[in-house]
């Protein structure tokens, strides 16, 4: 599903975010990217959805090298990739239903599909009955569930999660991880950047460890270390 071949990305001569990174992620896999702040985890996620381009190497997503993807084709790529963020990135003037529906509206889904799919995904993330709530009326965990619903409502092949539990207490974070695990079991590939040791150790999924942009460990059913 994902393949990186000798990818290097730097922001300046002194700041090399990712250096000569190579790995494969199979369809339906759940991968943790771990490492301290500034190790290149978020940059790798940005390379996977073409928010950034590497100087060197190839990034293959769903069988296509996206490094030289024409800008007009990027939206189609992103329709197959859901994004989850530490700060949720919810639209504060829209309610829960509208936030999730927004992801469908902007790609032109008809209203009858939106009316059908949004409640279903809100049910999946455990937010049934809270459709009318505004983001500021929700807890952090609920806001992250809305963010996950929005990322998953278009049934993407891949979910990229950048520190999705970073702003949550441990119990709430566990709930979010259970939800991501359920989504992963539907066949969705998940790549999650985190430095939450407890979660990585409890999930026992594949772990790719980065240190100053270099992959120093790639371990199946790994722990944080």
């Amino acid at each position, binding site marked *: 599903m994902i393949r990186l071949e000798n990818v290097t990305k730097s922001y300046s001569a002194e700041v090399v975010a990712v250096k000569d990174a190579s790995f494969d992620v199979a369809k339906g896999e759940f991968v943790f990217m771990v490492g301290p702040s500034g190790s290149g985890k978020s940059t790798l996620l940005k390379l996977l959805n073409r928010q950034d381009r590497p100087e060197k190497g190839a990034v293959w997503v769903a069988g296509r090298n996206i490094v030289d993807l024409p800008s007009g084709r990027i*939206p189609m790529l*992103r329709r197959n990739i859901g*994004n989850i963020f530490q700060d949720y990135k919810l*639209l504060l003037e829209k309610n829960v239903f509208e936030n999730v529906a927004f*992801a469908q509206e*902007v790609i*032109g889904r008809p*209203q009858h599909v939106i009316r059908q799919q949004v409640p279903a995904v809100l049910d999946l993330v455990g937010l049934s009955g809270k459709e009318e709530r505004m983001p500021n009326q929700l807890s952090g965990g609920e806001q992250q569930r809305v963010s996950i619903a*929005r990322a998953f409502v*278009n049934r993407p092949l891949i979910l990229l999660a950048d520190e999705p539990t970073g702003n949550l207490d441990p119990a709430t974070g566990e709930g979010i991880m259970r939800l991501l695990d359920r989504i992963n079991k539907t066949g969705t590939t998940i790549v999650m950047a985190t430095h939450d040791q407890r979660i990585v150790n409890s999930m026992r999924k594949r772990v790719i460890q980065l240190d100053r942009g270099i992959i120093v460990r790639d371990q199946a059913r790994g722990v944080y270390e």
Partner: protein
Amino acid sequence: MLSRLRYIFRETFDSFRRNATLTVASIITAAISLLGVGLTLLSQEGFDNLLSKWEGGVEMIIFMRPDVSDDQKALIESSLNENSQFIESWTYCDVECSIAESERVLAAEPGVRDLLNESNIPTQYKAVPTEATDVALLRQVSDEFAGGPGVFEVVFAEDQITLIEQLQSFFGFRLFLLSGFLLVAAVLLIWNTIRTAIFARRREIEVMKLVGATDWFIRIPFMLEGLLHGVIGGALASLGLGIWNSQWTRGVQGFPENSGFASLVITNGYDKQVMLIMLLIGAVAGAIGSGIAASRFLDV
């Protein structure tokens, strides 16, 4: 399709609401600048009307000496006929006619009128030129006749025509320049409003891009917003122009018929054409301003 249209209109009006102050400012600027454009066009049309009226009434008058002979008159008449490309028509005003005319023209100056009699009054050829507003051409034709046999003097309304042309050129150019500057200001303000709107909605745009919205899908509501700024500005300017024209028309009705001001009234439907032009210019200015902003600042 319906879903997209609904989305586009909803987002456009949301943006209007959120940036109310800037939106009002850019609409007012667009309206004022378009009103300037409209007034320029109307004033030019008014001056054209005035010149057209003059064109109908302008005559070149060749005054003949009182002792002019029949042969000399025949020469002048022959010359008038030969210059048909410059002279549309001509009439001869003999002694009797000239006396009658002096009675009318010099009614306010009886002393001067009394000095004229059948033996000393100059007779006149009144020629209607083909191009009565071309002062240079009129002068050329007039000079040609001025040196003719038996000719006392050749006159035409050179000063008045020159004055109107100067006024038209003075006001037309300066108003055009001013409205051009105002139009650029309107485009820049619309551009800035859209840029601010994009900045205010950067979070939404980021989400839209990440879920796979195309750039055009993101741009269209902003472009529509700018277009509406221009069109609403154009509509307000049209309203202003309509009120201005009606007030002006009413105002000049009291002026004397021969003062020229009556000809500065636009009554032939040209004001409606100008209103349509203002709406179109407003739409184009709005589309250009917002189009540039939406293309340039989308990478938020």
